[in-house]
């Protein structure tokens, strides 16, 4: 939702950017929802009935509805007040993909049961239920456009709990940022599928047929790799490690793809980094003005991808073109987990 400029400025002053926010009365706005307006119409109808028929109990019902409405306003307000919101992480993703941003919601123990919806606009929100639990984690999804840092916009938190007649909402401007890697292209300039978990393990298994060594089991290792005899012997879980660590190291360099545009080069390099790291090879990366030494492993891969993402990146490049993710992604983990 695009707000007019003066409102944007006023909101920015009122709802200053930060990493963790406790919702207080200053930040919370309240208005009747559509159903709430319907309720007001009902109230007027019952009042007319009471007046025209001079009916005592209809008067009483009318007053009860009105007082209930006031009670609901207060209760809805208190279902958002005191809620603490914190950004857990903005997950990295490839440019053009949908990035997952995790939020941690918590209500104080004196706080009431509530249900908080989060999202970038009113039409498209994900709910976190804090009915019996006091904490909950919720993900919102941000559509990235370009590589580099992305800054998700102002987040809307709203609650209509308990009755749905009143909407209490606030906008939070977190100073959050995540990173979008270049979109990977293979050599034939074919877009490489962002590697899903299944294909990773499959390719890893076919490529690395040669047993290398045993190492202690870590969460995430495939069950197929567990060395069961060792478990039977030692009582400790070991997983078999495949691969060719002794193979000669590769160097990926900027000059390797000369003839392409800079962005295409970065995409091609990204695809190479992904390929080599899935093959568990040792490699290094040479970019103009930056050299990453030869290494292997998850940390090294991230290091290389970040270098590619931030290569000559305009820090604010992502802001104007950024857009909220479409609703397709809601409730699902995006396939492009990196």
């Amino acid at each position, binding site marked *: 939702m695009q707000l007019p400029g003066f409102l944007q400025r006023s909101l920015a002053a009122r709802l200053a950017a930060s990493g963790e926010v406790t919702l207080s009365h200053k930040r919370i706005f309240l208005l009747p929802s559509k159903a709430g307006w319907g309720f007001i119409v009902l109230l007027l109808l019952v009042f007319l009935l009471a007046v025209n*028929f001079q*009916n*005592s109990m209809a008067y009483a*019902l009318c007053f009860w509805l009105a*007082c209930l409405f006031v009670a609901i306003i207060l209760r809805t307000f208190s279902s958002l007040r005191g809620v603490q919101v914190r950004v857990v992480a903005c997950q990295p993703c490839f440019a053009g993909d949908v990035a997952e941003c995790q939020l941690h919601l918590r209500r104080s123990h004196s706080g009431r049961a509530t249900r908080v919806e989060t999202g970038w606009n009113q039409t498209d929100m994900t709910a976190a*239920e804090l009915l019996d639990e006091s904490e909950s984690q919720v993900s919102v999804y941000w559509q990235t456009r370009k590589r580099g840092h992305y800054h998700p916009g102002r987040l809307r938190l709203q609650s209509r709990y*308990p*009755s749905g007649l009143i909407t209490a909402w606030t906008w939070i401007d977190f100073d959050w940022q995540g990173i979008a890697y270049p979109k990977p292209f293979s050599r034939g300039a074919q877009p490489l599928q962002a590697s899903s978990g299944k294909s990773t393990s499959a390719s890893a298994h076919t490529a690395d047929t040669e047993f290398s060594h045993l190492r202690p089991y870590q969460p995430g290792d495939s069950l197929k790799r567990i060395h069961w005899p060792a478990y039977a012997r030692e009582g400790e879980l070991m997983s078999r490690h495949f691969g060719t660590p002794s193979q000669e190291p590769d160097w990926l360099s900027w000059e390797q793809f000369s003839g392409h545009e800079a962005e295409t080069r970065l995409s091609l390099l990204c695809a190479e980094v992904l390929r080599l790291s899935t093959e568990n090879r040792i490699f290094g990366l040479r970019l103009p003005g930056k050299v990453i030494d030869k290494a292997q492993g998850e940390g090294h891969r991230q290091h290389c991808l970040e270098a590619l993402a931030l290569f000559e990146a305009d820090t604010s490049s992502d802001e104007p073109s950024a857009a909220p993710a479409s609703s397709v992604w809601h409730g699902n983990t995006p396939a492009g987990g990196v």
Partner: protein
Amino acid sequence: MTQRTLLMMAVAQSLTLLCLYGILSASLVSTLLIASLWRWSRFQSQWQRPSLLLRLLLAIAGGAVIALQGTSFTTLEGMSGVLALAFALKSLELVSRRDAWVVGFCGLFVLSVSFLFSQSFLQVLLVTLAFMSWLAAFVSFEQGQSGSALQAYRTSAKLLGMSLPIMLLCYLFFPRLPPLWSMPMQRTGVTGISDTLSPGSIASLAQSSKLAFRAQFTGMPVPPPQQRYWRGLVLSRFDGTTWAQGPAAFRRLAIPLATVSQGSYEILMSPTEQSWLFVLEHSRLSRGDALPVADETWTSRERLDDLASFSFVQDERYQQTTLPDWQRQLDTYLPGNNAANSNPRLVAFGRQLAERYDSSQALINAVMQSYRQQPFYYTLTPPAYDNAPNGLDRFYFDERQGFCGHYASSLAVILRAAGLPSRVISGYQGGEWNAQGQFIEVRQSSAHAWVEVWIEYQGWRRLDPTAMVAPERINQDRNTLTDTENPPFASHLPFFLELQQQWSSWEFLWQQKVVNYEQASATQGLLQRLKQFTLPSTDQLARALLDLKPWLPLPLVLLLALGWLWQRRPRSEATMLNLLRERLSPTQTAIDNAQTPEQLRQQLLAAYPQLRADIQDFFSPLQQRLYQPEAAISSSLQPRFRRLYARLRRAKKSR
């Protein structure tokens, strides 16, 4: 929408339709219930709405049901029936959240409409229940997947409880506005005494236990059962079968209002759709909006569409002592010999008596004795005389079976034939004394007709031939004759009888104090009382406490409700651990420092060594429960946790 939400809406809709029970016909209410349950029986949010044709057919069929029951669409019943029909059929279209809101709001409106027909305590209870169910259904919309129905009901009850005190203040002090426009709607099916009387017409009322009115006496003795004659209409015009009121021109006759009186009695009329009131003999209005009519009867200035109360005093100073000629003519008139219903045998009998007796008193005694001596039999289901010519002749001389209408009509005809001015009075006789509420309750089954005869220089005197035939009909507190024909279950059990009386006295207080509450005068009265406020003596306090006796169960019920609403919910183990964790390091969230219970116990022991015993007391059963659930101990963790948590808080403060 979840299954839970749909189920809760089904409950709310059924309750709402039940509120119309007794207002709309039972068959219509059942039809609507079935129509709405059709939707709910599927309990799924994916609902293919029935085709337009089917929906139209259903609407037409529903309309036909209403019309076939003889309800006109322009009456209030007809309109309410249409509203209820729309409300029930709307649920067949329920697909989206928006439809659910529409159904809910319709339901709330139907509830308010139901008050137009009944404002009894029971109705208010039922409506409150339905109201709470709708609110709970609304809460359930917002709960999402993880909520529970019980939580929704509790939340809605809390919200209603929160808004109740302000609602009561509004009810007490909000000024009542005059109607914005008139509602010219007729009601049907209101039972009550009609303005004419043919001998058989009261029989239909005699079966009805519907309340006609209640009367409460202050400062004057409560009349004994045989003196409880509530005069409603004076019927002087006779055409051979039917008695009607005298000519309209003669009816309005001003009678000076009495201003001083010892005691008074209050009549709280149930809605009758008519305007006449039922009062004891020689009554004068002392409070209320009513007009005097000739012959000491009264009508309300406005039609009695709602409950209304009037106060009267008994005052014999203005008794009529002379009979104008026009009235004498009217009250001795009989249809001529050529008329179809001249009842020649009764007329001849009357003339014969007039020749035999000199004094009118002796004549009256003789006629009354005839009812006792001849084998008359009181029954509500006599042979059909009403349509037969000279039906009263047949009744008095041949069949001798009938009830008050027949006895009163025949007596009046005999007396008129003997030359004594006489008329039939219709109203109520008797009424049930409610000891708890100190009032008399008169039901439709007490409808009665009797005779008044003019005795020169004395005035009108009441004669009740029914008392000669069936004295128990007159002398007993309850109408035992209808009871023996159709004995209610409760009459065999004194406890239930008492309970019934208790309920009835609540109902009276409810109608008198709450429903019939008049804002303007009550506020005035309150201000007056505040101005003249003095501390009550102990005697007055004791009496006030005694007055509160019928309300004694109420605080108990309230306490139970509050206890249910605000009872402590048992905390889950995870919540308890989180609370302790928060106490240790208030800034960190559970996700930041994921600890095992054991680690937490160690940290607590390190931080609060003085509370060692309490910490162990809580953690050892907790760990047992978490890690050996099959050997779970029976004792609850909750009190142990509360004790530990309270001590931790205090320990924090003391440091």
